[in-house]
């Protein structure tokens, strides 16, 4: 089981079984409060379950941070068509590696969360959409699902409650875009993953034209604890409107990279120095990507903040997906911006022209700039081209490419100026080529 050494500062709710022997087995799960929440939920009305999730102030852990209880309430109560629960396990936001750990270490917690969600929205079928790169997890989840069927925790009349639920895995095959919920729906229907126009939202018209509840793995993994111990207890762990804990994936230039479960609102500098063991090689902090590559970057002096959705929004960034990437003083920000843009240019699905053309143009410009061929007029043009993508695309991929780029150009102009007039990159990696 993949896991790192835990930190004493963690508050373990969704990761509480990590590190236990056989934490992925149904027996280990049942021995540690497993399925208690399911039985409790069966005694509650769907409205009471949704209300409890609203009280918990749980917000979507995939990146957008939408209040989960509200999303659940958007699924129409009655529908002539069957309803579905789809679990987004297409974790591909650069910097993020938490859903992988949740499925590997505690698959039954996810299954229980799915059952409760199914009960809340009256759905009886669920699909876990797992990215193709996590191929071993498809087999792993299939084994957990088979175990749950074998012991009567999935299928017809689950544990004599009269509730039926069937659960399946579905594989992606390499496409960042399919993590966007409407593109995911096209993908699960056997097509290219291209975003859909909203509204209608998936809660009303989703998979196979049916009402569909779509949630991230971590979001649903938090649901058993919320129902078992009450929404208020979960909410109290975080800050107002930002309930519970979050799995933070620390990576980059720190001493102890790892995935740590911390209360929402935990201070970012403490994350770096107390949880992550401080900066590697005693270097100075230069910048932080707070929650995956789509988030506007923070300068070192902006980092003394509580990590919650609203604080990050206030300083014009985002809490995102929990992928917190730490950059030290030796990092070339032009190279970093280039690598981000190269990613979005590769992943743009091509549906919306501003994103398809914009990401490729920006990639080429940044490549030219990093090789020393940049001109002073390119600096504002990088920002301008990026702004032309904002809000002009069906899905958020165009914004996701533009926002970090705009922030890097605005916050680190000196790094761009240092590359002007044919000057070689001033950072240590300068001898290394940048790959097209």
């Amino acid at each position, binding site marked *: 089981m993949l896991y790192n050494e835990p930190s004493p500062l963690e508050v373990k709710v969704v990761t509480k079984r990590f590190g236990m022997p056989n934490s992925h087995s149904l027996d280990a799960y049942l021995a540690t409060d497993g399925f208690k929440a399911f039985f409790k939920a069966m005694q509650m009305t769907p409205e009471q379950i949704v209300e409890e999730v609203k009280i918990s102030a749980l917000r979507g852990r995939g990146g957008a941070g939408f209040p989960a209880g509200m999303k659940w309430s958007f699924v129409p109560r009655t529908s002539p068509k069957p309803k579905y629960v789809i679990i987004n396990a297409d974790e591909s936001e650069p910097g993020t590696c938490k859903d992988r750990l949740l499925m590997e270490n505690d698959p039954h917690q996810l299954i229980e969360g799915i059952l409760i969600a199914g009960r809340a929205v009256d759905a009886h079928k669920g*699909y876990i959409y797992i990215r193709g790169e996590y191929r071993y997890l498809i087999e792993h989840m299939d084994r957990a699902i088979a175990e749950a069927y074998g012991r009567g925790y999935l299928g017809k009349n689950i544990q004599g409650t009269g509730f039926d639920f069937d659960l399946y895995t579905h594989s992606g095959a390499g496409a960042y875009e399919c993590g966007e919920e409407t593109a995911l729906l096209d993908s699960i229907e056997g097509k290219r993953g291209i975003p859909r126009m909203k509204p209608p939202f998936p809660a009303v018209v989703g998979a196979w034209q049916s009402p569909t509840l779509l949630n991230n793995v971590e979001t649903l993994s938090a649901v058993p604890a919320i129902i078992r111990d009450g929404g208020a207890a979960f909410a109290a762990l975080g800050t107002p409107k930002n309930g519970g804990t979050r799995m933070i994936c620390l990576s980059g230039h720190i001493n102890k990279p790892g995935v740590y479960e911390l209360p929402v609102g935990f201070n970012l500098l403490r994350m770096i120095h107390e949880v992550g063991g401080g900066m590697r090689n005693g270097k100075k902090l230069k910048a932080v990507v707070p929650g995956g590559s789509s988030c506007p970057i923070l300068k070192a002096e902006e980092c003394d903040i509580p990590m919650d959705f609203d604080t990050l929004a206030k300083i014009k960034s985002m809490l995102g997906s929990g992928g917190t990437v730490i950059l030290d003083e030796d990092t070339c920000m032009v190279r970093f911006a280039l690598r981000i843009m190269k990613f979005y240019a590769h992943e743009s699905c091509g549906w919306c022209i501003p994103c398809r053309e914009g990401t490729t143009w920006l990639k080429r410009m940044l490549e030219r700039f990093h090789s020393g061929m940049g001109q002073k007029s390119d600096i504002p043009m990088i920002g301008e081209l990026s702004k032309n993508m904002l809000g002009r695309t069906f899905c958020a991929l165009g914004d996701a490419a533009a926002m970090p780029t705009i922030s890097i150009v605005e916050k680190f102009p000196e790094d761009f100026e240092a590359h002007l007039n044919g000057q070689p990159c001033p950072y240590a990696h300068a001898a290394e080529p940048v790959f097209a």
Partner: protein
Amino acid sequence: MTFSPELEARFAKLLESYPPGRTRSAVVPMLLYAQDEVGHISNELIEEVARLCKVTPLQVDEVVGYYSMLHRKPLGKYHVQVCTNISCLLRGGEELYEHASKQLGIANKQVTADGQFSLEEVECIGACSWAPAVQINYDFHHLVTPEKLDALVAELRKAQ
């Protein structure tokens, strides 16, 4: 074209997992699982998947073109995928990719003459806290150094 009985059984189960009449939904997983067995996506494979999913071969082909893990040409027996996205970049991912390219003597998406190895620079594979990371076929390798990669490649060469 036929697949192994195990894979045929898996496909039958897969087709049943979707709502009635929604067999097209099986296209992407079926292509990936078939590629796992056959090695790459041939025209015959596309026709067979189209037949099983009750769609046209063109509807399958356009899907193949979209997903980065589906390959129309054979890869090496060992497909070495080096992540160079941001978390890996900061920990030497690009240098590691360069090293792999030199050691194997091939560039991005090329295959060695003996067909044993292929190389790909890939986007984030979800191993950010254990960077730099490499996937060889589906196996993850964490905290990879150039020396560790050389040892891995040497071991695979010996295993041939």
